[in-house]
């Protein structure tokens, strides 16, 4: 098993933490993992991306030229990075912000209204959790419980009060992901 996942979004959307959480969950599940970020040079704003590898073999290169999976949270990231997804790969797109389909066809696309769900849940900062939950629901590569536990480990104590919202977001995302596995999804 080898999952190469690329996350992209705006600064503030929780791209880096989301990726770290996924990798950490992989580690806790006994797998080999790596996570690495590319910051844009600006102190704030601009797009943020990271790449994670989760595998039961050696990680080897932590850099993925054409990731199997891309989780993209805003239109700029979608435009810039979606074309790099591997052939036959998976695009998880935030339909609350991204309007246009990515415009290439040899991959699967999973649309997730992440902002809307986050608002529903009552915590706008859970967009990343919805997206990642959707990916997990779709692929079953990691369990939602494992991801949630990883998050708990990584969040400073003072933020643990947000755990319920985050778990809710992960679960709502997972449902969408799981549904999408159905032929009609």
């Amino acid at each position, binding site marked *: 098993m080898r999952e190469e996942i690329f996350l992209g979004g705006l600064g503030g959307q929780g791209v880096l933490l989301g990726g770290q959480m996924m990798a950490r969950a992989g580690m806790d599940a006994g797998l080999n993992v790596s996570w690495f970020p590319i910051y844009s*040079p600006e*102190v*704030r704003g601009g797009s943020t991306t990271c790449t994670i590898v989760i595998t039961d073999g050696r990680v080897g290169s932590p850099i993925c030229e054409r990731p199997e999976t891309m989780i993209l949270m805003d239109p700029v990231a979608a435009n810039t990075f979606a074309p790099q997804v591997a052939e036959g790969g998976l695009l998880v797109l935030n339909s609350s912000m991204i309007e246009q389909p990515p415009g290439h066809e040899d991959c699967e696309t999973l649309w997730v209204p992440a902002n809307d769900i986050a608002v529903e849940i009552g915590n706008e900062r859970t967009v990343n959790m919805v997206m990642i939950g959707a990916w997990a629901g779709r692929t079953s590569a990691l369990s939602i419980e494992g991801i949630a536990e990883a998050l708990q480990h990584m969040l400073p104590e003072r933020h643990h009060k947000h755990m319920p919202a985050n778990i809710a977001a992960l679960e709502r995302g997972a449902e969408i992901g799981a549904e999408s596995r159905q032929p009609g999804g």
Partner: protein
Amino acid sequence: MTTDMKQVYAYPDALTEVEMRYCPGCTHGTAHRLVAEVIDELGIKDRTVTLATVGCSVYAYEYFDTDAVQCSHGRAPAVATGIKRVQPDTIVFAYQGDGDLASIGMAEIVHAAARGENFTVIFLNNAVYGMTQGQMAPTTLLGQKTTTSPRGRTAPEAGFPIRVCELLDTLDGPAFLAREALSTPPHVRNAKRAIKRAFETQVAGLGFSLVELLSTCPTWWGMTPLEAIKHVDEQMTKCYPIAVFRDRLAAQEGEQSAESAPGEGE
């Protein structure tokens, strides 16, 4: 819509259209604007060379619509010296942060000032290393928390803040030295006046000029932009008093006006 109106505040000609990358409310932008306005008012854009240094303002060469040289960290005064010795009539200004000027570049600024090199330094003091994520600067206030003084700066651990204008004021070389703050409209107006004075000093060939601008770093101070300018006004000015330390142009003008004062001695 503006047909019968006069434009009283326009985008300065000496700034390019490039959007500045500073964080919201960061007064680096204010400082840039003031410098650009002065360049426009003096009509020197085509003979000005901007020295960008290493810090949040490293892209100054993209913002100022002049020739520009990007300098290594702290060494802009040496680079400026090199340029001015070759081209004495070119107007050169270095835009330096407090890490750049007061930490790694201390020797270069002191010596350029001591030599009285005829260029201008805009010294932006925000009491922190903005670019590199909020480390302590030589100008960080005692007690101030930064990413490398996580318990607040203490003198036994990390020494005392350095007052650059006072330090340079012990030298014979500088012709203009002033400290202003980018905190309130009156202060900003004074800041512009000082910047203009500094450039005029250079144009007149009188030697080294420097304007220290007390500035904000909302991001690494962990403040809103409004809290940050209040902090400048209320805290920073205590350690760094606002003053014109030296103004040889004024001295010269004083002499000239004294000389040309009618009726005297004749």
